[in-house]
């Protein structure tokens, strides 16, 4: 047998694997022996003794397994991927119209106003003659863009602040007080305020939502960092000589990633909701711009007439599909990432 000390580490690994493959269990070795031979002493193999209990637990595998096992989650994941893909591919498809052009009837020259959905205009037209299909998808792009921008900011800025907050003990009191103050004011109120002060527009909304959104994320990251320092199992890991890097990747990162993704997934519906609200008050995006908020509000104006209701229902339907899918996928992922659920 080779002396392991002689081998380099990669060779060591392959050599170990070979040994393991060569290993035949004692059961297979002895099972076919005749009776009188069976009752003779066997040798004691200490390596067999150790092979007994080991856990085949891999965090990410178990997470993925739990997630995919949940058929609902997998389904909605497919849904959201398809919808997202379509949203961005849509303008590239043939025969698509622009969201802003007002369409005139070729015969009369009058705007095609409030036309029901038909083969030409799949979602119908709105009250000024724009193609609702194009507008819906354009609006989705805008709203998703806003939500995604806010989500990214939250994730980045929130994480950075959270890490600082957690690591640098001197900053802890400052940030905690800061957080306590700003936690008291609802995000909606801030949004109203900012939108009232600044000119309505995409940037205003993004700014207002980003202003308060990162707080929650920062707080959570900070808590996780503190837990790293203080939990017994981390102390034990450090005593055993585990490097900080490994502690971070094996103990901290799994929780962080799952929550960050969740937070990002939920930030998008939140942003859309806020946008709808603020548009209603009149301080949202400019009306010519297509956004889900604008579309819902425009639809609201005509909703009392049943034949025009489609103007509300189509954007609402798209909105509902997106928000529900994101919610389910985000939560399912977070649940799947929770080790407590890695039981079955």
């Amino acid at each position, binding site marked *: 047998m080779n002396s392991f000390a002689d081998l380099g580490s990669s060779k060591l690994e392959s050599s170990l694997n070979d040994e393991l493959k060569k290993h035949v269990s004692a059961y297979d070795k002895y099972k076919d022996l005749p009776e009188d031979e069976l009752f003779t002493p066997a040798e004691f193999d200490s390596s067999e003794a150790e092979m007994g209990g080991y856990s085949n637990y891999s965090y990410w595998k178990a997470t993925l397994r739990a997630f995919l096992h949940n058929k609902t989650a997998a389904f909605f994941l497919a849904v959201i991927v398809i919808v997202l893909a379509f949203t961005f591919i849509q303008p590239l498809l043939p025969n698509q119209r622009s969201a802003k052009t007002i369409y005139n009837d070729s015969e009369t020259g009058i705007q095609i106003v409030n036309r029901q959905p038909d083969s030409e205009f799949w979602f119908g037209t709105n009250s000024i003659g724009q193609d609702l299909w194009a507008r819906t998808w354009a609006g989705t792009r805008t709203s998703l863009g806003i939500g995604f921008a806010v989500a990214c900011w939250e994730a980045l800025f929130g994480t950075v602040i959270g890490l600082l907050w957690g690591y640098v003990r001197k900053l802890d009191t400052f940030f905690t007080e800061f957080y306590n103050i700003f936690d008291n004011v609802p995000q909606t109120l801030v949004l109203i305020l900012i939108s009232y002060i600044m000119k309505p527009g995409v940037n205003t909304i993004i700014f207002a939502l980003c202003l308060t959104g990162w707080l929650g994320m920062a707080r959570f990251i900070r808590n996780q960092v503190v837990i790293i320092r203080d939990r017994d199992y981390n102390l034990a890991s450090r005593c055993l000589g585990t490097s900080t890097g490994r502690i971070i990747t094996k103990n901290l990162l799994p929780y962080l990633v799952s929550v960050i993704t969740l*937070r990002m997934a939920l930030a998008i519906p939140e942003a859309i909701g806020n946008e709808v609200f603020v548009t209603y008050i009149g301080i949202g995006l400019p009306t010519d711009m297509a956004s889900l908020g604008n579309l819902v509000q425009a639809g609201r104006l005509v909703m009392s007439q049943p034949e025009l209701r489609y103007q509300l229902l189509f954007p609402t339907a798209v909105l509902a599909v997106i928000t529900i899918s994101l919610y389910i996928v985000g939560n399912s992922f977070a649940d799947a990432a929770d080790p407590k659920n890695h039981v079955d």
Partner: protein
Amino acid sequence: MRAVIEKCNNSSKRLAEIRSINFSKGQDTVTKYISKRILHSLITLCIVIVIVLALLRQMPIEGYFNNFDKMSQTQINVTLKQLGLKDPLPVQVGRYFVQLLHGDFGTSIKYRAGYSNAKIIAQKAPLSIEIGLISLAIALILGLPLGAAMARSTRSKFKFWDRFGTVLIVIVQAIPSAVYYLLIQLYGSEWFGVSMLFSRSNYATWILPIFSLSLGNIVYYAMWLRRFMVDEANKDYIKLACAKGVSQKKIWDRHVFRNAIVPLVQYIPNSILFTLMGSLYVESLYSIPGMGGLLVQAIKIQDNTLVEALVVLYSMISVVGLLLGDILMAIFDPRISFTGKEGAR
């Protein structure tokens, strides 16, 4: 879930505060804790008001004038000076604080020119409060049993309540409230033949707005209660109660439910805030003459002082609401009174 972050944040907030206080026996601990929190909230309130005021000073100046277009630059400047808006910020803030202490929220400019904002708001507030309280009550009455049913059904084969409740929770939490308020108004008034316009005397018109406001909270309480109950049900003392031979029903009601309510209390202030913000939209949808509708109107017509008054007021309510939550927690959570004895052998 957003739930998870909130829960972590809240419980670490509580625990940090618990650890930072020196405990002795008895009721003093609770009162000490409460006094500390009140003081803390007062300070927070002041800071919040200062920041809000500073921001509000950035409001477009058209909001201060009834006929802005017709005024000359000098006239504008004179009025601004009169209103005290040309003074340095600290002076303005200080002045506003003094006014606040006298209960003066400024004077409306456009909504009802010359009227005291405080009076205007006071007229509208009672209705909002009434509607808010009713919807919170309904949320508890419907949400808690739902959550309990969901928790219990996790142990059954078909898990009907759990599935039903989960679908409901997902729909209500995922779809923005601004959207489902609309749908409720639309289809509610159509199917039940109720007018979309609120009328104080016609009780039928109260149903839809109150339901809209409570829906979010019903689902919120149900979700949290279910979570807490499932957690409690896995604890050792429940196993012992089972071994004692206590019936499942009694275990769920007397042990699991009662104990799970305790941490639930900390989510009540959040739901108050939610109702508060929701009322802004719901009130204007149904033309309810309340505070929320007032704010929306004030924004639409750009009456700066009224907007300011309302934003400040809402901030105050938020702070107080969260404070109330902490106080309730202190009363309900035995760990706060009992710490110091915990772990003694």
